[in-house]
């Protein structure tokens, strides 16, 4: 397969003097699995994006990137895109379409593969990934791990020579991460896929890696095989590097010193082997040696740096547990999401003592998040209650509750609703009753190291910074108890260490902490108590020390080592036995475009053959030859049918769409003249939609443009639901559509508006009303865009609100048109037409009021928001007036 060479690569972002990469040189040989590690900001993502040419950031670049000896900039665009595949961090936002099958096909469609070829590849890979039963599923129903597997499969279907992965495991829970690593190892070992993967957690990865590249401040600090990596890192003694060592390896090196360094063990199994040869029994030595996991803080500062730590702390707290004053308690709590569904929490009793640091463990979907939300008073149990110091939490006013019970959601983005970090902090302080919110905000910023970020938009922060900002918001009221949902998810070792320090400090100040987590090492290193949630109840609740001793699976790698059990089958995939996979030699063949093309065509042929074959009731095995053999009239009919089909396939769609539209319009006119008013209206509205869509299709649209319009259309569709609960017709759809028109132009406004009608009706129910709604909302966006281009209401509230008022009525009038036309056809009386409109007036008035309300109050903020994205990513407005740099 591929051979990647990076030679003397130096790169500085546009407008930045400091280079992000300095003289980076390395190579990845065919079939290798190379791991790229380094702290956040060391340039890993920049490097990967430079190799993936389509996503290369703008800036000054020196040096060369060669793939198979050819500089990547010399590859033609299509080949370059196909040759290098990229899987990114977040499993969700990489998904472009709606179902698994569409997602898998998407990449192949982009490369214009013939249909048969697509089906063949998809069939093959879906089998390998075990995705076959899921093909028709909406992507939304998949777990995070499965979504990431779909992303990986979607990339692999384009048969890249080189697979790049940018922290693909960071957002996954440990179980899903292990499964994905298994998949990647299989692909690498059995299929010879060349992989270059950036990752923080090397525990599972190092045994599979052929090469480790360590980036520090944009330069290559190490490049070589894993064993050498371990030796180099160990000898350097640099705490910033030691973090990358797997826990078991670090332990073995500390325990056995140079003996282990000769042939460094990469995983628990190898360490155990050393233990055996050295005659050390793991289980005996474990607690005696005071192993508390390689807490990064400890690494950095030595054992002295962390005061309340290790066995001594545990012993102290373990004893003191019963004596703790109860603070937050749940009694007989039952909770189900809706009436028909099984309960998630079933009769749970749990008490948290003041000043504890509790880790809540449990499998995916065991209800950890739900439990935290119940404890925080965000949800109310159907049975039982949650009390804070004896007072039911739902009795507390929201402000007090938030001030006393802090809650940090899994995704820090959920906490942000303002445009700068400063505003977020001030509002949080004010809501929790601070006397001087501005001063309090500054104090929070200082404390959580956010001072330099105060004017930034929360979405522009890095993962660790977001986490800190959200934490600052959550503890703004100095709560008695802080509930954290997966606080370590997606953080690199440094950010994690920083967070752990912060949490310990809060805990030291007397704050009670509860962290739901998958991160066993984190729990083991920091929690004083651990609880296991199982089937809606607390199945175990013990001091950390005894908890982990009793566990078999919920144990850190070090425990696994100490146990001397389990973990036998690690890396079993490498034993092979899968050599003759379904795809034979084709995966490796990259130069066989023509050959696979032929295969594809044959496949396409047999498609039709199969159809025919089945009609006769014969087996479809030799479908290709069947039509020739199948004599007589039936065979001729089928052959003719195939010809007709082929003719239709070759014909451009517009050739028969346009005459069809014209014919329908003519029918509409005739219908009107004969009094068939319903059809006349229908034909009219259909015809009105055609030119807009025809115009939208006149060229291929850029990915960003499509993605933005899709988001806005989806947003408007989603907006139809929650507001309708307040008052019928009181929805922000028209508002969102108009704002879209103002910022992205008339055309985008029309498409977003009409699409929101179409898309929301996929969920709410399609009907004869759909085209009317499409037209009405489309026009709302279109007129807003037209008038904005005339400079009428760039950021001005009054004219925008006035247009909103007009569209509140116009929308209803367009929707009533079908009945109004009918009244006209029946009676030829304007009074009757007016009567129809009068009947709808109350609803129209509410709609208009909603538009005015939203536009006057929020129009400018929304316009700012959308402009931010339009300018940040240079999306073209209308006819490409803004240059589209990166389509």
């Amino acid at each position, binding site marked *: 397969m591929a051979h990647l060479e990076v030679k003397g690569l130096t790169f500085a972002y546009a407008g930045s003097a400091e280079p992000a990469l300095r003289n980076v040189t390395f190579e990845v040989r065919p079939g290798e699995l190379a791991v790229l590690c380094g702290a956040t900001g060391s340039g890993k993502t920049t490097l990967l994006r430079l190799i993936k040419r389509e996503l290369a950031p703008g800036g000054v670049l020196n040096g060369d990137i060669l793939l198979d000896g050819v500089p990547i900039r010399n590859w033609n665009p299509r080949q370059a895109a196909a040759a290098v595949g990229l899987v990114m961090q977040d499993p969700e936002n990489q*998904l472009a379409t709606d179902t698994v099958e569409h997602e898998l096909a998407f990449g192949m469609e982009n490369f214009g593969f013939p249909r048969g070829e697509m089906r063949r590849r998809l069939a093959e890979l879906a089998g390998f990934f075990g995705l076959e039963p899921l093909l028709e599923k909406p992507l939304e129903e998949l777990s995070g791990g499965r979504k990431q597997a779909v992303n990986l499969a979607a990339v692999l279907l384009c048969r890249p020579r080189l697979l790049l992965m940018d922290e693909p495991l960071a957002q996954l829970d440990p179980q899903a991460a292990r499964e994905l690593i298994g998949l990647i190892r299989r692909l690498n070992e059995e299929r010879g896929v060349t992989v270059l993967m950036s990752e923080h957690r090397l525990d599972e990865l190092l045994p599979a890696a052929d090469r480790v590249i360590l980036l520090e401040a944009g330069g290559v600090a190490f490049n070589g095989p894993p064993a050498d990596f371990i030796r180099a890192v160990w000898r350097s003694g640099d705490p910033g590097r030691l973090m990358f060592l797997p826990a078991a390896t670090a332990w073995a090196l500390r325990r056995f010193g140079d003996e282990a360094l000769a042939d460094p063990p990469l995983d628990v199994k190898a360490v155990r082997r050393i233990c055996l040869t050295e005659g050390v029994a793991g289980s005996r030595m474990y607690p005696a040696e005071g192993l508390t996991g390689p807490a990064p803080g400890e690494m950095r500062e030595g054992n002295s740096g962390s005061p309340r730590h290790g066995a001594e702390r545990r012993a102290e707290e373990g004893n003191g547990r019963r004596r703790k004053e109860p603070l937050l308690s749940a009694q007989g709590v039952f909770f189900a999401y809706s009436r028909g569904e099984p309960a998630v929490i079933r009769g749970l009793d749990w008490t948290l003592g003041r000043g504890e640091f509790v880790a809540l463990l449990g499998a995916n979907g065991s209800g950890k998040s739900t439990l935290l939300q119940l404890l925080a008073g965000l949800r109310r149990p159907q049975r039982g209650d949650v009390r804070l110091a004896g007072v039911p939490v739902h009795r507390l006013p929201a402000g007090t509750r938030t001030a006393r019970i802090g809650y940090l959601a899994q995704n820090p983005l959920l906490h942000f609703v303002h445009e700068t970090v400063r505003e977020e902090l001030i509002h949080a302080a004010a809501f929790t009753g601070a006397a001087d919110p501005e001063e309090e905000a500054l104090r929070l910023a200082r404390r959580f190291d956010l001072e330099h970020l105060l004017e930034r938009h929360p979405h522009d922060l890095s993962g660790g910074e977001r986490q800190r900002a959200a934490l600052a918001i959550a503890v703004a009221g100095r709560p008695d108890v802080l509930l954290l949902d997966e606080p370590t998810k997606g953080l690199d070792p440094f950010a994690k260490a920083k967070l752990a320090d912060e949490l310990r400090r809060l805990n030291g100040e007397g704050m009670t902490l509860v962290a739901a987590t998958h991160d066993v090492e984190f729990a083991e290193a920091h929690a004083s108590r651990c609880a296991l949630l199982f089937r809606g109840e607390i199945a175990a609740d013990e001091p950390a020390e005894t908890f982990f001793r009793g566990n078999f699976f919920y144990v850190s790698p070090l425990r696994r080592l100490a146990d001397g059990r389990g973990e036998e089958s690690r890396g079993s995939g490498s034993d092979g036995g899968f050599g003759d996979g379904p795809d034979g030699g084709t995966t490796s063949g990259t130069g066989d475009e023509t050959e696979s093309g032929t295969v594809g065509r044959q496949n396409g042929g047999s498609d039709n053959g199969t159809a025919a074959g089945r009609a006769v009731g014969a087996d479809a095995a030799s479908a290709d030859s069947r039509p020739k053999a199948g004599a007589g009239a039936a065979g001729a009919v089928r052959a003719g049918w195939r010809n007709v089909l082929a003719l239709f396939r070759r014909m451009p769609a517009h050739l028969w769409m346009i005459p069809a539209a014209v014919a329908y319009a003519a029918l509409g006119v005739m*219908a009107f003249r004969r009094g068939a008013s319903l059809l006349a209206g229908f034909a009219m509205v259909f015809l009105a939609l055609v030119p807009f869509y025809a115009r939208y299709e006149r060229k291929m649209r850029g990915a960003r443009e499509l993605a933005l319009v899709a988001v806005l259309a989806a947003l408007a569709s989603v907006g139809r639901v929650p507001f309708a609960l307040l008052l019928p017709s009181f929805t922000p759809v028209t508002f969102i559509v108009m704002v879209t028109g103002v910022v992205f132009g008339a055309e985008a406004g029309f498409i977003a508006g009409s699409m929101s009608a179409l898309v929301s009706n996929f969920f709410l129910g399609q009907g004869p009303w759909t085209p009317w709604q499409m037209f009405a909302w489309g026009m709302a966006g279109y007129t807003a865009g037209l008038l904005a281009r005339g400079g009428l209401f760039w950021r001005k509230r009054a004219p925008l609100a006035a247009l909103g008022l007009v569209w509140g009525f116009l929308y209803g009038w367009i929707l009533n048109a079908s009945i109004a036309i009918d009244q006209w056809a029946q009676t030829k*009386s304007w009074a009757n037409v007016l009567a129809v409109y009068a009947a709808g007036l109350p609803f129209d008035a509410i709609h208009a009021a909603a538009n005015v309300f939203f536009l006057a109050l929020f129009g400018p903020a929304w316009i700012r928001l959308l402009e931010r994205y339009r300018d940040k990513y240079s999306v073209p407005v209308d006819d490409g007036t803004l240059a589209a740099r990166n389509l």
Partner: protein
Amino acid sequence: MDAFGFRSLHPAVLLVYYAGGMTFGMLFFHPAVLLAGLAANAAVHAAVDGGRELRKWLKFLLPGVLLLAAVNPLLVRQGATVWFYIGSLSITKEAVVYGVTLAAAVLHMMLFAVSYRVVFSGEKFLHLFARWAPNAALVAMMAIGLVPRMRRRLAELALVQQTRGVTVSSGPLRLRAASGLKLVWSLAGWSLEDALRTADSMRARGYGTGPRSAYRRFSPRLRDGLSGILLAAVAAAMLWCWMKGYGLLRVYPRLPDPAPDKGDWIALALYAAFVAFPLLWEWRDRAAWRTLR
């Protein structure tokens, strides 16, 4: 699910059926023709899913339709035959008949819409328009994927934002609406940020490097060709009928004898056959099960 019966037909044929059924349902304006169409439509519902969806929707649709039938004579003064008076309001026979016929036509459209929901999945719709309007179809596909994700995120936001005093479940209407929009606003920022990653992932997978091809799950079979020809033929015949004025009841100015004449009978037969067309494949495939058992 989609392998047998009417559902198994190619989306293009399904489109011809629904477009034709709805178009001629709106063109013919004769109570007898429309009632026959309604009956055929109900039979199709029964065959396709045992009438489950229909029963679910009828309780929402019927009131509107009945209202339409009731309101028309109150609103319309046209017509020569005054039936009775409500106060000083004259109710004409013509307006009543017209209202009932119009209501039947509208109900008929609704029935089509409901069975469309059962038969015509979003995927089939996109399949059709991926070719006519590739950009729009892609946007629709992306938006359909986003809607459930955004709904989930909006619910999460609403939950977590309680801790910041942003709530739609309590307080005066103005504040609730403002809170609601604030939630949607922060969802917008989040989603737009995501959209750019999505665009990256699209470009990483070669979007925009040249013309696209279309992956298709549905390929037309002989059955689809036969169905298409049959439907087109019946539609052409119906068009001829309509041009000749069959299946049209001229209610105004004076109601003629509403009994169908010969031409109306032809229109009725053709239209009922067209609407009942799905039964053909439903029965054919059901028979296959019986004989194969």
